[in-house]
């Protein structure tokens, strides 16, 4: 099915299921990225460059961005795109209380948005936010369709209209979502005429579909991807991703309130290398820091907490824990025992949790794995978390680790971390920021929020005929972003 009826090229992509397609509701998904476009976009290196904006100016003194928009950009429904749409979108992000806080928090420094004229927008910040350009990559929504509507439940979410490279065509619930190329796109018009997002939530089914030719491209987990290596009908693309897995303790949980001092040393009891080699079949890396793959700001010299059971034993016993009769450490009659939750839909996480649990048990730590449909942060003790900071280091650190930040579900609080994250956000100077992030990593590493486990590679398996995928870009959480250069893709 590489070509449709009219000879146009059709790509079938194995996708997760969607409930909405809206750039400000779904943030780590492929579809909103290609249907909507933002003022800015990321280049191959993950740096923001203008997109809907022709150019922009920044006045550090007044903290004001002025964007000059492209003219003659049309929404997919033919309406002209104007500054009013930008204002509408950013205002919604600022004011709508229903939106997810981890998204809206990134825009809280915006003080005012003014549409100077149809093609000029001025954005005034109340405080400096060096990552603001990153956040302005968010897709702009059409004001004429959404004004006055309930953005959470409007049918627009099922029939999105954007300005992006691909137009929404149809949505077959639970089956497929079809988009076609936007011939009027202001930039490079894609070569592939149609992309079918075939909805296959199950990872193994996805792999089976790739094998049987039902889909042309799919993100597979490492175990499944392994099967396709060396098969000359398929190409396996190994993307680097910023996606890491870690055991995230809930600092509000009674156990960790009492025994928070265990968190830094638990890492010694985890043989992360073995996990990478088994679960990820080697497709990944042992993790030590949330900013590890952000080479620009990374500090590789922080404490790695590599596997060292002897060290763990020493440290844990220094804290007053004694091995109990069943081999599990005990202190004051309390067992060194906690649970880690994971959701059932991602096998890799479940596997990591299971192996971690069995490794910890060998070191005398009882970590129970609980598979839950949904997380309840009120009661859970640990979560096998997955996070990523693919672009600006602010994105993926500030909202996770800053005390009481919107994404800080683990209730992590570390004054040093707060200090350096704030400093990094407030400065526009790369050198200052690098220093701040290095300091942050140091502080974080001394008192980590997570027990880091592994960075994952993004293994995309494509039919040989699909070309143009570029592994240059570091992908985000769940290996999202593979379509960053979709306009260059082609099919033989």
């Amino acid at each position, binding site marked *: 099915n590489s070509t449709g009826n009219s000879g146009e090229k059709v790509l079938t992509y194995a996708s997760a299921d969607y409930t909405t397609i809206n750039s400000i509701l779904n943030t780590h998904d492929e579809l909103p990225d290609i249907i909507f476009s933002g003022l800015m976009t990321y280049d191959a290196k993950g740096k923001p460059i203008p997109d809907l904006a022709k150019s922009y100016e920044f006045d550090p003194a007044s903290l004001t961005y002025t964007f000059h928009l492209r003219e003659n950009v049309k929404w997919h429904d033919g309406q002209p795109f104007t500054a009013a749409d930008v204002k509408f979108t950013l205002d919604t992000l600022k004011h709508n209380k229903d939106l997810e806080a981890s998204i809206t928090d990134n825009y809280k420094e915006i003080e005012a948005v003014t549409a100077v004229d149809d093609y000029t927008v001025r954005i005034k910040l109340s405080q400096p936010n060096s990552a603001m350009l990153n956040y302005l990559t968010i897709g702009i929504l059409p004001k004429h369709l959404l004004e006055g509507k309930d953005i959470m439940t409007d049918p627009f979410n099922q029939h999105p209209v954007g300005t992006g490279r691909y137009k929404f065509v149809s949505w*077959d619930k639970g*089956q497929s979502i079809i988009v076609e190329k936007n011939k009027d796109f202001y930039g490079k018009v894609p070569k592939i005429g149609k992309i079918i997002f075939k909805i296959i939530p*199950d990872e193994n*089914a996805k792999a089976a579909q790739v094998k*049987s030719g039902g889909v042309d491209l799919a993100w597979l987990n490492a175990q499944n991807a392994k099967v396709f290596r060396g098969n000359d009908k398929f190409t396996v693309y190994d993307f680097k991703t910023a996606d890491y897995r870690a055991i995230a303790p809930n600092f509000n949980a009674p156990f960790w309130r009492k025994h928070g001092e265990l968190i830094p040393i638990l890492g010694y009891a985890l043989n992360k290398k073995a996990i990478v080699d088994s679960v990820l079949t080697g497709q990944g890396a042992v993790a030590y820091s949330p900013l590890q793959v952000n080479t620009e700001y990374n500090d590789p010299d922080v404490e790695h907490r590599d596997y060292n059971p002897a060290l763990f034993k020493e440290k844990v016993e220094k804290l007053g824990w004694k091995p109990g009769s069943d081999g599990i450490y005990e202190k004051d009659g309390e067992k060194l025992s906690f649970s880690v939750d994971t959701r059932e839909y991602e096998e890799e996480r479940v596997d990591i949790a299971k192996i971690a649990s069995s490794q910890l048990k060998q070191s005398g730590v009882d970590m129970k794995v609980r598979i839950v449909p949904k997380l309840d942060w009120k009661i859970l003790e640990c979560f096998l978390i997955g996070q990523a900071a693919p672009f600006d280091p602010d994105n993926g650190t500030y909202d996770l680790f800053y005390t009481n930040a919107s994404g800080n579900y683990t209730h992590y609080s570390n004054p040093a971390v707060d200090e350096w994250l704030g400093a990094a956000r407030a400065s526009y100077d790369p050198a200052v920021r690098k220093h701040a992030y290095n300091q942050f990593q140091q502080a974080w590493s001394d008192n980590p929020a997570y027990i880091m486990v592994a960075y994952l590679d993004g293994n995309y398996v494509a039919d040989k005929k699909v070309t143009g995928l570029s592994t240059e870009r570091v992908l985000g959480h769940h290996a999202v972003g593979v379509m960053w250069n979709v306009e260059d893709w082609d099919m033989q």
Partner: protein
Amino acid sequence: MNFQKMYHTIWCKLAVFVIAMGILSIAVFYVSSYAPGDPLQSFYGERVEQMSPAEHEAARQRLGLDGPVYQRYLSWLHHAVQGDFGISFKYKEPALDVIRALIGNTLLLGSISYAIVFILAIGLAVCCALHEDTWIDRAICKIGTIVFYLPAFWVGLVLILLFNVNLGWLPGSGAYDPGQSDNVLNRLEHLVLPMLVMVISHVWYYAYMIRNKLLDETRQEYVFLAKVKGFSRFYIVCTHCLRNVAPTIVSIMAVSVNHILGGTYVVEAVFSYPGIGHLSIESAKYHDYNLLMLIVLITGALVIASGLIAQAVNERIDGRMKTAEGGASWNRSHRSA
């Protein structure tokens, strides 16, 4: 039967139906309301965690989750009778729309499998009854039992492995290829494997039940009478015995609507077949109450209606039902040596 009486019975049945649906909806509403878990999470995601109590209250209000359960039920009912079943928290669109898009697929899969299951079951049962205690019957029974006990999901996986991945003959996921929703052939092609699983996992249960009923029937004396008339065994089983088993088959068929609907859940999960089965599991897991209510009501309505229809059909085809009580006691007082 005169018209008056027919009207009467139809009204009675309708009343039973409505009452049953009412009770069902109340039960499910209460159970799901009291089940622990926060439906707000489906709608707001993890943001709920960060909400202040006031915000939380406001959010509940927005979704109509405030107030005592009975009030909520009444307001739900009030809207429901007007055709408004609320929005799905997870999909953030009217629950009816979510289901409308998918129910067709489930019904298609369910009804075709249903038909095949019963045609096949009756066929197998007749075959077994004709060859009772011969190797044919034994072989069918043994194979049937084994097949019956293969977990459906496992059969599905193996079939996918075989026919889709390795042989590439049949598609292994979805209800049709994208954009081909009106292409009957394409749909059928996609239906083959799911249907096969449905049939494999259900047919023997029913075939076996019908077989046993038929065997009981072949032990009846009237079989002798039919034989004395000079009819062949096949004819006797097909006309005399099946006719007597028919009411049982009809009742079984009514009860099985639920089983087969339940079966589609697993099959849908295995074949990524878009249908309400998958949806209902999700909605139960994620406390998507409006959607759940609607699904339960739909399946419940199907099952209850089929039960009532079966009852009506049975009263039609089986004169014995009407005089059951009188007939039974009559029999008893006349039992002879």
